Each structure stands twice: as C-alpha cells, then as structure tokens.
C-alpha cells in the first residue's frame, strides 16, 4: 500500500495541536478559561531617557494613550496592543510629535498580592514629526513595559505603568550633502497613571 507523503507532516501537526489544546482543555476544566478583553487608557509624564542625546534638546512633557489587552490561553501571558501620543517641547523652538504603536506580550508576575504586576515586551512602529525641520517618518520600535494595577470593583482596574521605547533610526541614510551629519536612535520613557476596564465580566 502506498503510504501518503503527508503522513509524517500530519502526525507532527496533530502532535503540536495536542500540545496547544491540552493545556487549554486543562484550563477550561480548572479555571473556566474564557475571553477577557480589557480596554485601558493612561496619561502621565513622558521623557527622553535621561543621559541620552535627545535630552540635550527635548524636555519632559505629558503624554497619554490607549491600550487593548486580551488574555490568551495561558496562565501568565496576555497580548497587549496600544498607541499613545506625546508632544515634546524644549526651551528653544525644537518640538517633537510622537505616536508609538506597539504589540506586546504581557507576563503576569507570579506574585500573590492584591496587586497585579506585569512585565511586557514587544515591538511596533513610531510615527515622529519634528519642528523646525518638519521631517516625519514611521520608525521601527522595540518596547519594554512594567505595570502594577489593582482591581477597583469588577469593571475597573487602576494602576501605574512605565513604558520604554527604543526607536531605531540608524538604519536610515544620512543626507549626502552634510558630511558631519550623525544618525541617532531615540530612547523614550513614559510614566502613566492608568485605568482599564474589563469589557467582559
């Protein structure tokens, strides 16, 4: 009998599917896993990371943003996506508008307190537009975050979050007519007072 050439692949796929489904099944049995999305917003101080080049130009400012979070079939991981807006000013005329957009995995630290601690990592893209040059671009970003929150009732959670963005500009080319031009990356910190809502209780 001719053996199907898909046989081994199907077997592997089936095994993988089992690895994925079985823990879910276990969770469903033990913790009644179900979709629990959250929608949140934050505002607070935003700043270039102290000591980095941009602190020569830009000052600490206020920013704010939105995020959406959902649990995935895991005890400790969630998926988060968010966007925010920051407008950096300076004592001179330099200004910077920044809209980072990211996706991240959020790990709930196994600390058994009424507070929930989450560490986050992800990537995305950052729209930037400066003044006075008016140059604008979407730049790739890397994201790290930390969050501490507690529930205030069944719907609302209140917390604090810190976000770090690494904005990568050095993959671009310096202008050809300026031999002294140096390329820089950006490092930004956001500190936010946050509130999020459990959309599905």
């Amino acid at each position, binding site marked *: 009998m001719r053996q199907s050439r898909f046989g081994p692949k199907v077997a592997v796929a089936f095994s993988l599917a089992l690895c994925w489904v079985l823990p879910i099944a276990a969770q469903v049995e033990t913790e009644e896993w179900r979709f629990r999305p959250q929608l949140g917003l934050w505002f607070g101080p935003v700043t270039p990371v102290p000591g980095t*080049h*941009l602190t*020569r*130009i*830009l000052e600490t400012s206020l920013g704010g943003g939105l995020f959406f979070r959902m649990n995935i079939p895991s005890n400790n991981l969630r998926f988060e996506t968010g966007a925010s807006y920051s407008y950096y000013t*300076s*004592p*001179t*005329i*330099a200004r*910077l508008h920044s809209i980072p957009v990211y996706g991240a995995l959020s790990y709930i630290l196994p600390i058994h307190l009424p507070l929930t601690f989450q560490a986050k990592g992800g990537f*995305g*893209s950052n729209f*930037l*537009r*400066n*003044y*006075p*040059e*008016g*140059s*604008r*671009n*979407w*730049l*790739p970003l890397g994201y790290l975050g930390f969050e501490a929150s507690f529930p205030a009732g069944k719907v609302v959670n209140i917390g604090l979050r810190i976000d770090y963005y690494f*904005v990568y*500009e050095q*993959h*671009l*080319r*310096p*202008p050809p*007519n*300026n031999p*002294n*031009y*140096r*390329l*820089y*990356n*950006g490092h930004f910190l956001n500190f936010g007072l946050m509130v999020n809502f459990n959309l599905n209780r």
Partner: protein
Amino acid sequence: MVKLRNILSFGALAVLGCTNELPLSDLLNNTMTLKLLGTYESNDPYGWLNLPVDDVITTSGVASSDPAIGGGSDLVNYVLNASTGLSVRPNDLKFYIDIAEIRIARGQGKAPGQPIPEYWSQFAISRQLLCSDYATAEPGRILQNCADQNGSSKLHEFFNGGFTYPAVDIEHGNYNHLGIYFRRFVTAPAVGFLGNGTFINATAPERTMVATFDNRSVYGMDVASLLQNNYGEAAAEPRMFPLQRKDLKLFVEAGHEPYVLEVRVFVKNNMMVHILQPAGGNAAVTYVAPIDWNTNHAYRDLFNGERQGGSLLMTARTYQPAKSGAIQFSAPATAGEYFGVTEAATMLTTPNMVLPLAATRGTNTRITNLPPGNYNVYRLCDKTRCSNASTPGGCDQAAGQDGYPETVAFCGQYTVSSGTTTNVPLALCSSACP
C-alpha cells in the same frame, strides 16, 4: 493577491520607515552654524588700531570744561601721551560682554500682549559670557562662569572671525528681524578724575571705576546703559536689549546643506576714548565706548551725556559655504579703509549709516563667502567725524577722522557665482575716497 501584497508592503513601510526623513537625528544635527562677529569685516579683519579720542580732548585741554581741565592735566596726559596714553595702546582695552540670547523673527515687532514664542523664534537661548580676563575687583575672586565658558578665547574669536553661538536650527524660509540681547557691555579702562582732571588714584588710576559682571565687580564701566537711548530719547524699548534690525534679508534654504547665519556687531575698531564731566559736578570720567560718529557726544549734559545710542551697529546674513563665491580687488586700499558689498537692490550713501552685507579690511583684497547674486561693491573710507562744534543732538560739523567709515565710493555692480572669484579693479572705486 495584489491587495494582500499592497497591505503587506504598507505594513512593512510603516515598520521600517516610509521615507528617508530623519525626525530624531534632524533635531540633534545642526544645519545652521550661528556665527557672532564683533567686527565690521565679515572676513580678514584688522588688528586693533589706535583708539580715536573724542575731539573735545586735545593736548591743550578739554574744550569747554568747567572746572577747566588743562593741557598738562593728568586726564589729558593719561589719554593723549604719545607713548603711554590710552589712545595708543588699544591692546589694553578690556571687554566684559554678557549676551542673554539671540532671536529671529518674521515681522515688524511683537504686538503688545503677544506671547514671546509666538513672534520670536528663540533658537539661541544659551547665555554667553565673553571677557578679556577672569580677574575681578574682589580679592581672591575670579569670573567663574566666564572662565567655565572659556570666555576669554570666545572674546578673541569674536574679534577674529567670529565664535559659534550655541543654537538650534530654524524653520526654512525668509526672516527679516533679528535681535541680540545684551545684558552687559563693560569696557575698561575707565578712570575717575577730580573735576579738574587730577587723578583720584594716581598709583592705580584704572582701579577707580567698578562695574558688575558675572555676579562680581570688575574694573571698568558698563556702557550698555549708555547705548540704550539716543540723544534726547527715553525710549521704552532699550536699544541694546535687543540690538536689532527689522530690515534684514535672511533666507534659510530647506534641506541639509550646511549654512552659516552670520551676525556682525561693529565693536572692534569702533571704540573711542570718551569723557564725561557733568555740569555742576566735580568729577570727570574717561571711558571707552563706541565712536560718536552719528551724534556728537554731549559730554557735559547731565541728561544726554549718558545717551550715546545708535552708535553700535549690527547686521546679519546667511550663506552656504559650499555654494559661495568671492570678490577680488585688484589692489589694497589705504590702511583704515574697508571694502564692502550690499545686495544689488540696496545702495550705500554718504554718510554711511549701516553696515555692509559683507566686508573686509582695506589692506586685504578679497571678500569671501558671498552667495551667488548681484552685488554693489564699495570702498569705504573715514573722511569725517562728528565734531564738538555740531548742533546738540546732531552731526552737522564733520571735519576730521574718527575711525568710522562714513564715506562711500561706489566701485560698480558685479555678479558673483558659486565657486568663482569676481575681479574688481580698485581704480573703479571712484571719487569720494581717492
């Protein structure tokens, strides 16, 4: 499939960058260099020339002084002695200059109530201290902030080609208004005398006048306060805060090609030994301040003696060094004279009351860093001075020389191209300054 590919490529562009624009690096790299020069010349300035002396001080005494300051007095000898007098030792001049900031704008001035950042571009807000030395009148103290800024070498550069003023880039386009905010402009030596011209302190005459600079006392006199108002004027807007012009033609190109914003203040070789002997008082002071080429200094007038405004001039221009040309004269002019240019649309006239767009000393023959365009070319000479016989508040008696080039000789109109040198025969710089 095509749609999917479009979506994917849009996503990739969003992540990797749509263009090669550099929003972060552009903030940190300067396309502009702000150069502040303390000279009439934009390139190759004179060294320090001997100081002119106000025409009221002559070897036979100070004209109309009361009490009389005679020919043999300490004051006259201190100023005019042929080998030790202040007039022949310009290298002993000291400057202590404190600049708050430089601003640029489009318009004819801030409207009342308009916020400052709405009108002015505050692109150079770093306070700059320039000082000849770091010594103070206070024992054991130095001018610490000026020393920390290396203000002595900055002052040297100010008088020899310009120093780079810390600044950020400005938006491209046209500007017409630029102002320099002087907090202090202290000069030394300033010497106090009794009313009849006798030294107050014969052993250290140059330690009799004290001014404040960099939070300390220094020997000298703050002449910024004397330059704030014109004769007879009590202007609400002081002339040194800012020292400004609203008729400049400053064009900033878009892009990353480096350019220079050159700001010139005519300080070097625009200094004169002046005297104050206020009527009714019993004291006299000699000090160094800008030449009274525009209005005779009313040295005995209690009110107008301290109103010497308008004698300090400034101008500004932009150029891209990589796209500039030069003008070459066939021969040098007489020492003390200048060569200068203006844009073709602007004519200099005698008496010359403005700084040329670019200039060099008369003993040099080349004006450099000129953007392509048409220029009026001039030789500028010192043929007149504002005599003490002038009507008060005016300058209608003008026999003699004072160091300021009031006289203009037009050499013709010439075209300058990028990277080339345009020749100008000196013989064509006609008539008025032979």
